[in-house]
């Protein structure tokens, strides 16, 4: 299912050292094509989240170059970052929901920042919330949800604006088997429509029987790049 198109993500010799500590990423070279679905795995603390954070400028690399959708992140000015982030839907490992916003408002935020009005977003937000099975809880505050429910809101928020790239950081850690399958299917569907997906996970069952490409990090080094 790998479409051989132009690369949408390019990393060259990327290094990330968090001030004063040992490097979290060392010399990562990576190229991901438009429309690819890539799993990212590796033990706890190996640098998966760091790699993803670099791709939407939550962190800046301390070495190497990164190009995302023709934007060179090393020369990207601060005022350009929001426009990068609108192209990249991120499911955060710690969800990063606004606890006192409702489910609807949390998801709608992704569209509101684009300048759409409430009217315009209503339909799309409702549809995506339904697809993650939370329609009946649409008006609850995020803080009133269970862990798995929060995770699904985070997924909905990342995909609602149909970004060309989705970075999913452990998006099924709090979900039961059935829900996990649903999420993977949602990702497959989005991928089929052309979305590039990087899916960081510890759950080997998710990729062992697929033909997806699997990247394995170990102590900041891209140890293995197993094309599916």
């Amino acid at each position, binding site marked *: 299912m790998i479409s051989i198109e132009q690369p949408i993500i390019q990393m060259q010799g990327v290094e990330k050292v968090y001030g004063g500590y040992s490097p979290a990423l060392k010399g990562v070279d990576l190229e991901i094509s438009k429309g690819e679905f890539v799993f990212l795995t590796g033990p706890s603390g190996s640098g998966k989240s760091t790699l993803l954070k670099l791709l939407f400028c939550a962190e800046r690399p301390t070495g190497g170059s990164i190009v995302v959708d023709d934007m060179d992140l090393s020369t990207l000015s601060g005022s350009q970052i929001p426009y990068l982030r609108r192209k990249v839907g991120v499911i955060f490992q710690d969800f990063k929901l606004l606890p006192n916003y409702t489910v609807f408002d949390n998801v709608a*935020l992704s569209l509101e920042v684009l300048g759409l009005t*409430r009217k315009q977003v209503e339909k799309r937000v409702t549809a995506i919330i339904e697809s993650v099975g939370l329609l009946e809880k649409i008006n609850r505050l995020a803080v009133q949800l269970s862990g798995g429910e929060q995770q699904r809101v985070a997924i909905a928020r990342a995909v609602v604006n149909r970004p060309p790239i989705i970075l999913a950081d452990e998006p099924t850690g709090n979900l039961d088997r059935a829900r996990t399958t649903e999420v993977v299917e949602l990702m497959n569907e989005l991928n089929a429509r052309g979305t590039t997906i990087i899916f960081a996970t510890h759950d080997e069952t998710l990729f062992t029987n697929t033909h997806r490409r699997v990247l394995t990090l170990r102590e900041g080094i891209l140890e293995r790049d197993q094309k599916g």
Partner: protein
Amino acid sequence: MIPGTFFKRALRDLKQNLFTHLMTTGVVAFSCLLFVIFGLFSFNLQQFVEKFGRELAVVVYLKKDVSQEKIPSLYKRINALDGVESVEFISSEDAYRELQAFLKDEKEILEGVDPLFLPPSFQVEINRAVFNIDKVKKIAEIMSQWPEVAKVQYGQEWVDRLEAISQVTRNIVIIAGVLLLLTATFVVSNTIKLTVYARQEEIEIMRLVGATNGFIQGPFLIEAFFQGFIGASFAILVSWLLYRYLAESVSATPLLKDMDLHFLPMEYVGGVLAVSTLFCVLGTYIALRRFLKS
């Protein structure tokens, strides 16, 4: 970006953080109130000192032997002097009557005294010369050299004293004003900082989902505008009510009737409103900047 969206979001924020907003507005209101009342106080003090100063006069005593005919020409000469506001002639008889009035019930002590024993004089009012003692001195000097004049008296001691008092008053007012301004600035900017910091997470998350700085700042700045404006308006209203109360209680006291109070001039009121609003908006802008630059 449609401004309407900003207003709607500002409204939602307001509902969600009502307590904090009321608090900030309260802090702004109190700060402005202190400042306006202080302004009211020092403005009236200044008016009072000025008025008092304006009542000071230069008295020109004439020699007892100056003939009546010379009075009109002297009157004209004094009136022609630079800085003279008004001139009044007081004959020996007038002076005697004034002394009688001054002594009131003890006027019997003047029994058997020649009504003409006091010299005739001119009462000269100087045009707002209170704080310009040099001009008074100059005028006095010119007049004292005229042959008809016996003595020029201008209450030098009083002028000096007044000047000293107004100097000290001015110093106190300046120090107190600067202190108040510092306090208000410090307190209001801290309150703003704390409320913005309390929403740090919200700002961070908005940035992560692709919000521009403008999108994030918009509602904050609108809210800050209203906080500054409503807070200051409230302060002005309260101090106006206070002023009405004081003014009425002063004018109801017969002995203080001539001490009429004034409210602050419109420019000052407008200034407080403008500065308060601007300050809140700017303070919020600066507090936000910390979280917006990456």
